[in-house]
């Protein structure tokens, strides 16, 4: 177990290092931030001073080494636009994205898992067919369109829910959160539902496919032959085997919720990292873009790591020490 963790850790370091190279080079060959950031009225001398201050006068490899050196001290560089450390700029926005992604994931699980279980256990019922047809819609309707429809219906027509911003927030653990206030929670519902729609369908279909595979196994029949109650057969014998593929998807999809919630955040004016990254790309705020991408790399590496660990918890066959 320990050796696995260490080996994983070393692999992760390599992945992260390779990504610094790709991300840094990729971002630094596009456009010229000076054109955007510097007031066109400035004279050449002042202009050069800005370039020097941003470190853009140095050759690319030197910039990269400076960047790497900063990384070792947790310094991702200073935002061109905000004049503050890039990491701080992102961390300011991260709680908003995090709480939204978490709520969306919870919704997707709470709806997707039971419905998938039901549709898998009773595939011939009409209700199961309705569920499966519905999940196709969840899959195929574009997120932005659904988001707009949500706003039109629940915010404009019915006036039930707010459609813009985070609402009131409360400070907790050094960050501001919406989910702790009634007003903030109301603001979260529509964007979270919007984000959850696709994930719900995904988890639902995956669960159903898993159930149908597991139900046909001899050990389920044997569990019934032992006279176990149906609840125990489903919730222990079937569900526990099912969780292995589902956990993989939950982990990766949670990452993608955080990393790619751009569309939903833009539609609902949610001030999260998705919106920040789009703004930063438009303004060629390289340090923020690089810092953001690096954080996402770390996020996915971490999630994969957590998924691997949870495999060993869920599936005794994966445990390597042989003692169970």
């Amino acid at each position, binding site marked *: 177990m320990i050796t696995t963790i260490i080996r994983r850790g070393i692999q992760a370091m390599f992945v992260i290092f390779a990504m610094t190279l790709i991300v840094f080079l990729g971002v630094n060959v596009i456009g010229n931030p000076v054109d955007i950031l510097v007031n066109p009225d400035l004279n050449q001398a002042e202009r050069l001073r800005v370039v020097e201050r941003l470190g853009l006068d140095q050759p690319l490899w030197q910039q990269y080494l400076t960047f790497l050196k900063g990384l070792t001290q947790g310094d991702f560089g200073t935002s061109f636009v905000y004049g503050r450390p890039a990491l701080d700029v992102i961390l300011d926005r991260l709680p908003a994205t995090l709480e939204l992604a978490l709520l969306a994931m919870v919704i997707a699980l709470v709806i997707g898992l039971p419905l998938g279980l039901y549709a898998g256990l009773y595939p*011939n019922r009409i209700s199961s067919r309705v569920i499966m047809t519905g999940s196709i819609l969840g899959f195929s309707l574009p997120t932005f369109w659904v988001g707009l429809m949500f706003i039109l219906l629940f915010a404009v027509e019915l006036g039930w829910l707010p459609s813009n911003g985070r609402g009131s927030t409360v400070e907790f653990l050094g960050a501001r959160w919406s989910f702790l206030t009634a007003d903030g929670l109301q603001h979260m519902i529509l964007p979270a539902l919007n984000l959850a729609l696709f994930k719900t369908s995904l988890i639902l279909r995956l669960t159903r496919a898993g159930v149908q595979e597991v139900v046909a*196994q*001899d*050990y389920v*029949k*044997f*569990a*019934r*032959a*032992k*006279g*176990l*109650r*149906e609840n*125990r057969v489903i919730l*222990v*014998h079937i569900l*526990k*085997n099912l969780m292995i593929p589902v956990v993989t998807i939950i982990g990766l999809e949670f990452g993608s919720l955080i990393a790619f919630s751009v569309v939903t955040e833009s539609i609902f004016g949610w001030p999260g990292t998705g919106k920040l990254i789009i703004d930063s790309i438009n303004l060629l705020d390289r340090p923020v873009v690089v810092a953001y991408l690096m954080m996402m790399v770390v996020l996915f590496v971490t999630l994969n790591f957590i998924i691997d660990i949870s495999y060993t918890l*869920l*599936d*005794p*066959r994966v445990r390597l020490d*042989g003692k*169970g």
Partner: protein
Amino acid sequence: MTPLLDVRKLVTEFPVGHGRTLRAVDEVSFQLGRGEVLGLVGESGSGKSVTGFSIMGLVDGPGRVSSGQIMFDGMDLTQANPEARRSLRGRRIAMVFQDPMMTLNPVLRIGTQLTETLHAHLQIGHNEAHARARDALALVGIPSPEERLDAYPHQFSGGMRQRVAIAIALLHQPDLIIADEPTTALDVTIQAQIIAEFQRLTEERGTSVIWITHDLAIASGLADRIAVMYGGRIVEMGQTDDVLSAPRHPYTRGLIRSVPSQNSRGTRLAQIPGVTPNLANMPKGCAFRTRCARADAACESRPGRFGGPQAFHRCFHPHEETA
């Protein structure tokens, strides 16, 4: 005294669409006394496993028992409600499956799989269940049972897993155990061990057994009586010795002749020509007639039972001589 199990004209069908059904079990009738061992012999697809699952009430949907009665200790199981059937399963009627690699849940500890069977039928505490599970493992010859309770199925060999499955089946001292080819997936040496163990445990307790197998040699060593199934019907039934020494039905005779040890060295192994007919397209009348050397026009109508309920055959042209 009424027999423990009295199966009367059991029919189990699987719908195949367009209103058509497949008869996997076709009017099967037999009785099983207390402490008796019945060998249910037949090729794959002969309906022997489905018969077992019909008695358990575990026929895979959309298949179902469509007519007939299964009288167990005076109660008709086909009329019993699901909860009553559940409460019989594992407690009074237990089952052991063919492939021990597949019957134990890979993600649950052995101990859990034993104790949950106890908790399903008894109001007992955690410690008592644990102790009984440990004793059950010891009973089937698993060394250091206390530690093995914490192990997972993949840490056991196939033979050990089948012992665990047998331990589970025996937990509640059932009246009847249905053993569905429990040794087919095991090595020959392990097979012999498991059979001996199984025989010892069921004899000690006077448990009735339906031993489902395609292996006539195993059935002859174990069973008091043998029922031979073909195409969903019992084509011959009788005392083991009688059936083996003087088979009446040509199919039974063919089965016995195709056991290699029956042949003398150097002679060609006898085979039954052709293959088991598809259930969807059974010959009319006697299902075996397309493979039978003795078949004639009479075989196009369905043979009834010749003989009494304990020993009979279904053949218009039975062998009279010994094998």
